[in-house]
């Protein structure tokens, strides 16, 4: 069965290479993207099934080929309880991203239109994402330090292009920052890996991990851990090496944000679990207090920063810093429960934040902005389903028990309560308390945001950006309508309202007292859109001609995440039973 892992890399790679042949557009491209990513996802499920659940420790499905013999580099792949969930998460998220990209309507750059290729360069986007998938999956599968590093680096380039080509207004700056920052981290990581290589003479992760640092003195381990840790911490990101993240998330397109938050950040934490801690146990023990301190600072800092953010995507990016702080805190405890917490938190964060970014991407596409004050309020009235999903994702993200976000945080705190022997207990108790404060602050910023965005009256909304939420033809029509309405606002207002009422009494009401020029235009556009919607065949367009609520494609992309969040929340054993035996092995604990 070991071909499965190789196939996991080959299939998306081949899928990407096939795109170099210009053979089809529109539907064919869609079918191609969905097929390739779907097959990859299925392969990962096959791997999961083949992995079994007997709880035995050790790598499965190993492929071990000579790669560069004179350097003793090996093409060594394998999977265990730590990497398997991440692999499945990666393939799943990529697949869902493609499903999401097939949506109709909207003006996002990350779409796979049904017809002709638009200005968004969908073919290139599919190519890039498939390449990204290869890199990420390879990172999780690699069992050779240099192979790991190669895949680790492969990821950067596609992500750079995703941000730089399909991003927002300041995308170039964000992309530059992203790549420079992460490359800097990679260099340090590479130095650390080479240092390990020089000291131990092998690059085999399995052998290194089973040696548990034998043959390296404590000082050397500490040095190597710091180097590798800094390299990984940039990717994670750990405070204070995080500032590339908000910029990148704010500018990246929706699928870019989803993959960045859902998968790319996990590569850093995976590195901690796979390389830094098992290979360099003494170094880890020496650095763990610092790691924990930075993690906790990151938690509180991220939460506080979130409270002051105006942009939704930026806020979620900062919330990622907080959540990854919990993951790092779990690692810092060096206990099985802490590592379990970190790995669980990884997956949970991947699911939840992916969902959050999906939903916020949907919001941004509809409103034309992700600025919280500009969104106004009353999304529950305007777009009830979308707002409900946003609420769900936020609640999951703030760590409500019964949803996936809780277990990672709770177990991390539990680990901090009783850290590994040799670590200062009072220090970690302080960390735990600060982490607890972080959970309160997390709840605070999410709830405040929900209150500002979903609650309240929809008429508070600034309508003008909504014009951006429709296709070009509709935009022209809407602009024309806006001009008409501006001419005779007062005359139109009542009629507009009547039309709105007739069109649909369900959605949030338009308060005529505050229907201003743009508001009138908006209502006007709505009603006209409602008339035109039948012919345009937009199945997702809500009745009453409002901005579309959740469309089927979006729902198809999001529901699996919702289900998984619920599943892991209600049944954490599904994941913990996978990671727990492996974690004990990694730590060399009984």
């Amino acid at each position, binding site marked *: 069965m070991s071909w499965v892992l190789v196939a996991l890399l080959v299939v998306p790679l081949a899928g990407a290479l096939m795109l170099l042949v210009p053979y089809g557009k529109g539907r064919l491209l869609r079918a191609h993207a969905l097929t390739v990513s779907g097959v990859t996802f299925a392969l990962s499920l096959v791997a999961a099934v083949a992995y079994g659940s007997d709880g035995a420790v050790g790598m499965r499905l190993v492929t071990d080929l000579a790669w560069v013999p004179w350097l003793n580099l090996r093409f060594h792949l394998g999977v265990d309880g730590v990497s398997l969930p991440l692999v499945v998460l990666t393939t799943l998220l990529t697949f869902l991203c493609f499903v999401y990209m097939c949506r109709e309507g909207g003006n996002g750059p990350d779409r796979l239109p049904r017809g002709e290729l638009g200005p968004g360069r969908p073919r290139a986007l599919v190519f890039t994402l498939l390449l990204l998938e290869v890199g990420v999956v390879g990172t999780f599968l690699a069992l050779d330090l240099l192979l790991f590093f190669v895949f680790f680096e492969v990821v950067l380039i596609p992500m750079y292009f995703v941000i730089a080509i399909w991003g927002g207004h*300041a995308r*170039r700056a*964000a992309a*530059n*920052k992203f790549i420079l920052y992460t490359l800097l981290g990679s260099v340090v990581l590479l130095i650390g890996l080479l240092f390990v290589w020089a000291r131990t003479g092998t690059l085999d992760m399995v052998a290194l991990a089973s040696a548990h640092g034998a043959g390296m003195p404590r000082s050397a381990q500490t040095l190597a851990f710091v180097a590798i840790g800094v390299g990984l911490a940039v990717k994670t990101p750990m405070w204070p090496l995080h500032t590339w993240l908000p910029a990148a998330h704010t500018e990246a397109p929706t699928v870019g944000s989803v993959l960045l938050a859902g998968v790319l950040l996990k590569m850093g934490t995976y590195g901690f679990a796979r390389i830094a801690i098992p290979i360099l146990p003494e170094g880890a023990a020496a650095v763990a207090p610092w790691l924990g301190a930075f993690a906790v600072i990151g938690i509180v800092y991220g939460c506080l920063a979130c409270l002051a953010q105006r942009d939704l995507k930026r806020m979620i990016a900062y919330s990622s810093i907080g959540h990854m702080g919990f993951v790092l805190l779990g690692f810092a405890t060096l206990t099985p429960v802490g590592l379990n917490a970190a790995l669980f938190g990884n997956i949970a964060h991947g699911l939840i934040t992916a969902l959050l970014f999906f939903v916020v991407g949907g919001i941004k596409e509809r409103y034309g902005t992700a600025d919280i004050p500009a969104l106004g309020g009353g999304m529950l009235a305007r777009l009830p389903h979308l707002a409900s999903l946003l609420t769900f994702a936020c609640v999951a993200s703030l760590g409500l028990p019964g949803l996936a976000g809780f277990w990672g945080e709770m177990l991390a705190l539990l680990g901090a309560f009783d850290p590994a022997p040799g670590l200062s207990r009072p220090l970690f108790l302080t960390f735990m308390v600060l982490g607890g404060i972080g959970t309160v602050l997390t709840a605070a910023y999410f709830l405040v945001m929900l209150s500002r965005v979903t609650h309240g009256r929809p008429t508070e909304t600034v309508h003008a950006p909504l014009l951006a939420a429709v296709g070009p033809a509709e935009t022209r029509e809407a602009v024309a309508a806006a001009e008409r309405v501006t001419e005779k606002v007062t005359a139109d207002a009542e009629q507009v309202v009547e039309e709105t009422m007739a069109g649909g009494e369900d959605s949030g009401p338009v308060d005529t007292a505050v229907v201003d020029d743009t508001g009138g235009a908006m209502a006007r556009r709505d009603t006209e859109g409602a008339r035109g919607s039948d012919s345009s065949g937009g199945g997702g367009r809500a009745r009453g001609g409002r901005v579309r609520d959740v469309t089927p494609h979006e729902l198809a992309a999001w529901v699996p995440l919702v289900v998984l969040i619920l599943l892991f929340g209600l049944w954490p054993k599904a994941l913990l039973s996978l990671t727990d035996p492996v974690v004990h092995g990694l730590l060399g604990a009984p």
Partner: protein
Amino acid sequence: MHVVYPAVVSALLFSIGVYGVLARRNTILVLMSVELMLNAVNLNLVVFDVWLRDRLHSGQVLTLFVIVIAAAEVGLGLAIILALYRNRATVDLDRLRALAEFPVPSPEDADDHLPENATEETAGQASRASAATGPTRPPGRDDTPEATP
């Protein structure tokens, strides 16, 4: 004959040519200095040919080739100089600063380094342009070549 004599003469000629290339401003003078250096090399070739008694006379033949190539080079070089003169109305080497990183404000003080204010201004632009990220494209690069008369 002692080989040292011609060798020293050629070394001195070569150094003089180097000085000419580096110190002269007029392009034609630079071309002359290049000729000096070529001749220094030629002298060496001939001497070694004689010294080594090469039956193929490779040294002298090579000298001939070099002379021919030098003639071609001078022709081409002069053509280039003429084209340059047509475009820039000058053949002074240190006014031809198309390769400069910073734009040269005026030909008069464009000698070895830029005046202070210009440096500061461009640096300021650079930092502002790159406020968001690391290095970006250096500013003002594209207005250099044709703008300076």
